[in-house]
């Protein structure tokens, strides 16, 4: 039989390599990870009990393609309150296989492929947006978030100038990854006003961390302001909220004319989302804000407190008594904090700064496959060098922020690294102690 020659489509760049390097480093150098945004805690018992109940009651077969009636009813009530909006559970909610899946389905549903439709995204931002926009056949256009005096600012002029008649979507991640920024009411009003000049622009409000705010900061959903609901899909992630990122169910709310096309894509791809998990979430959602989960705190308040405790611990430990001159930046929300590592350049061994061949290989050991990326001046990104150094010589994984920009973005910086604060205090203490002990 002759050897078959196949030609396969190139619909999206294969960026799994990016994360693979850090997974490989973790294994080879036995690192403690502060890299991946997956919580250490288990989901609350009330959620687990609801799942068991749903399975026993027989909710185990195919269910409604847009989302199980019990869940969509619950979602409509819960987020209707948050957004100050009457939400129709049957036409204004879509449930898919995780928030990630909802986001890509929205992009596929709304972007006409290869027609020059532009998607605006703040950088630094979740890198997967880049791949997903490419997959949907859109054009990714970054907007810059700039850091000044410990706060991240958006540039209204730049926002205004980046909009044009080709702009189809604005992906707006509030309670932002990786900066933790919560956009203020003033900023949201300003954005809304600017967008009035481009009424065709659809907003994808990625609100997956909206529940995880610190220091009592208020989160305002973009869709709750003025008439914004009519043009906004708001994405939520129960996996993040209830520490069950592996259960893979997520949802969005929005006007029917945006929800319906998303549901068509979802139906084709998965038919329906996991049934018993949907029922469990539907029954658990009204319980997350009830006081009395831990002392007087509700479950959400408890999670906020736990994460904030880790955030504060790390902030303190990395600001004082640390041999490296890193500057932690305040995070207002979410799973992460950023460190400014620009002052560490002189301390990083030459090997990491000079090239991508940074390992001191043992006899017979092959080098790891690494990201061969460069800054525009041809240098190895400083943050990448830093993270490799810390992984190999101190056994702790962090993520270089330069990976949170498009590789050709004019705004790409290499002076920040991202650490997670979602792993619980014990794990975080171990990581910090290892970091500070300069393990051989």
């Amino acid at each position, binding site marked *: 039989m002759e050897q078959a020659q196949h030609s396969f489509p190139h619909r999206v760049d294969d960026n799994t390599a990016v994360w693979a390097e850090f997974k490989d480093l973790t294994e080879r150098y036995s690192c403690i990870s502060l890299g991946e945004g997956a919580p250490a805690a*288990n989901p609350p018992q009330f959620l687990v009990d609801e799942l068991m109940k749903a399975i026993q009651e027989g909710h185990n077969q195919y269910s409604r393609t847009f989302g199980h009636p019990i869940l969509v009813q619950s979602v409509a009530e819960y987020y209707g309150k948050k957004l100050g909006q009457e939400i129709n559970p049957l036409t204004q909610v879509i449930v898919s296989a*995780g928030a990630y*899946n909802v986001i890509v389905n929205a992009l596929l*549903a709304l972007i006409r492929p290869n027609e020059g439709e532009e998607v605006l995204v703040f950088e630094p931002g979740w890198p997967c947006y880049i791949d997903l926009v490419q997959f949907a056949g859109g054009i990714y256009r970054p907007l810059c978030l700039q850091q000044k005096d410990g706060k991240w600012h958006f540039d209204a002029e730049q926002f205004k100038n980046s909009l044009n008649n080709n702009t189809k979507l604005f992906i707006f991640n509030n309670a932002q990854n990786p900066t933790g920024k919560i956009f203020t009411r003033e900023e949201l009003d300003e954005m809304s006003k600017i967008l009035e000049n481009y009424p065709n622009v659809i907003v994808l409000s990625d609100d997956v961390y909206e529940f995880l705010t610190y220091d009592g900061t208020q989160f305002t959903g973009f869709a709750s302001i003025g008439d914004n609901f009519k043009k906004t899909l708001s994405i939520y992630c129960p996996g993040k909220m209830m520490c069950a990122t592996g259960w893979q169910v997520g949802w969005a709310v929005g006007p029917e004319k945006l929800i319906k096309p998303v549901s068509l894509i979802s139906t084709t791809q*998965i038919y329906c989302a*996991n049934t018993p998990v949907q029922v469990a979430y539907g029954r658990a959602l009204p319980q997350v804000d009830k006081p009395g989960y831990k002392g007087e705190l509700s479950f959400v308040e408890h999670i906020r407190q736990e994460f904030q405790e880790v955030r504060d611990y790390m902030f303190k430990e990395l600001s004082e008594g640390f041999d490296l001159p890193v500057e932690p930046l305040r995070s207002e929300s979410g799973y992460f904090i950023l460190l400014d590592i620009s002052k560490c350049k002189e301390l990083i061994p030459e090997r990491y700064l000079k090239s991508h061949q940074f390992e001191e290989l043992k006899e017979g050991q092959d080098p790891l496959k690494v990201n061969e990326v460069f800054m525009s001046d041809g240098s190895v990104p400083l943050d990448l060098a830093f993270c490799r150094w810390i992984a190999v010589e101190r056994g702790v994984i962090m993520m270089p922020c330069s990976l949170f920009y498009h590789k050709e973005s004019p705004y790409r910086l290499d002076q920040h690294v991202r650490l997670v604060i979602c792993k619980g205090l014990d794990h975080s203490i171990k990581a910090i102690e290892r970091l500070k002990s300069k393990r051989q």
Partner: protein
Amino acid sequence: MESQDNQETKVQRKYPHRIDDNVAIWTEFRELGDRYSCLSLGEGAPGGNPPDFLKDFMIKAIDEGYNQYQRIFGIPEFVNKIADVYGEKLKRQINPMTEIMVTAGANSALNSYIIGLINPREGEEVLVFEPCFPQYQDHIQMAEGVYKAVPLEWKENRWTFDPEVLRKSLNDKTKIFLLNNAHNPTGKLFNREDLQILTDILNEFPHVIVISDDVYEFLTFDDQQSSILFASIGNNFEKTVSIFSGGKLFQATGWKVGWSIAPNEILSKAAIIQCCTTYCINAPAQIAMSRSFDLIETMPYTEGRTFVQNMKKEFQDVRDFFISQFNSISQELPVVPLPSESGYFLMIDITNCKKIIPERYLKSHDFEELKEGQSAVSRNIVYMPDGSVPLDLAFCRWMAVEKGVIMMPASLFYHKESPIRDDKYVRIGICKGLDHSRKAFDRIKGKQKMD
């Protein structure tokens, strides 16, 4: 840019058309089911439940901490198990890390492979047997490939295909041959002879990749072994994707876990797509299924039968019930059941019913006797090439409205422009359990609609 009065701003957006809205097809029958309080023999959702031990393993997996993001292509414990179980069926060593991809249900596997393999808008063809699972069309459309079909025909008491017709339908542009064995909706099992013919013909077109939809492979009747996997024959593994469904195997279609086995050259293309779509798959469900794999085939579960043996018996009992019952009323209702060898469904030939179906259903799509102020249900406005309402659609509407039973017209299992589209068969679910099926048949016989 001058500002505009928000009130008068007209929002004009263009949306992509990646996929036809085929939800409408199923909507008619859902609405008929609701309005006329029907019992359903329509959808392929089983009436039974997953085994208790699967549910227990699920809860245990949650307690053990399998609740966060996992390896995208499947948890190592699970893929190792799949490699063992299917390595035996395929008679080869399967590499769990490079040749297995766990998916959000089998349907998601079809989506990822078809999109991953088809070069969009280049006229690449996907060849299928019709009638077939209608969602194949949707995946192919989404991938921007070309859907092409060859017929399965009922001849000499079995469903057959014509090798010459198949050979003539294959060409340079054929990218994928999509084979569904055990077949939906006919229940046909492609036997060794069939599969050898297919293998030989496909060897004349070595560029063609085979996707073998094996989701019902375990659900065979009449003491038959599991269906023969195309990938297990000769060198076929090198060109074949085999797709399996945890939802069907464990009678938990809502749990949405499937798996695919393929050589890495092919799997890696689907993997890139999965990274962009469903990402990881439900973690505790993977562990639960992994730990239940052996038990469903070895542990006595119901009256001494294993879970799988019991499922096969229950479905076969319903199949046999419908066949004997339809035969017993063939004077009043001249339906000819076509024995199904496998799966969730039974096809019946309703050609001879034309003379007894009330005119209203045959004449047009306005078949309801509407009450004051009532509007018609959403309807599939489709016609046969001669302009008639499809006979099977008329039959199913009649059954729904006047007997209170939902069945599916098999003409919906062809592309709406398929030149081989036939309207003389109706598909009945045999997956709903004997009680439900008896009640449904009482209604078909014409007994009171009330239970």
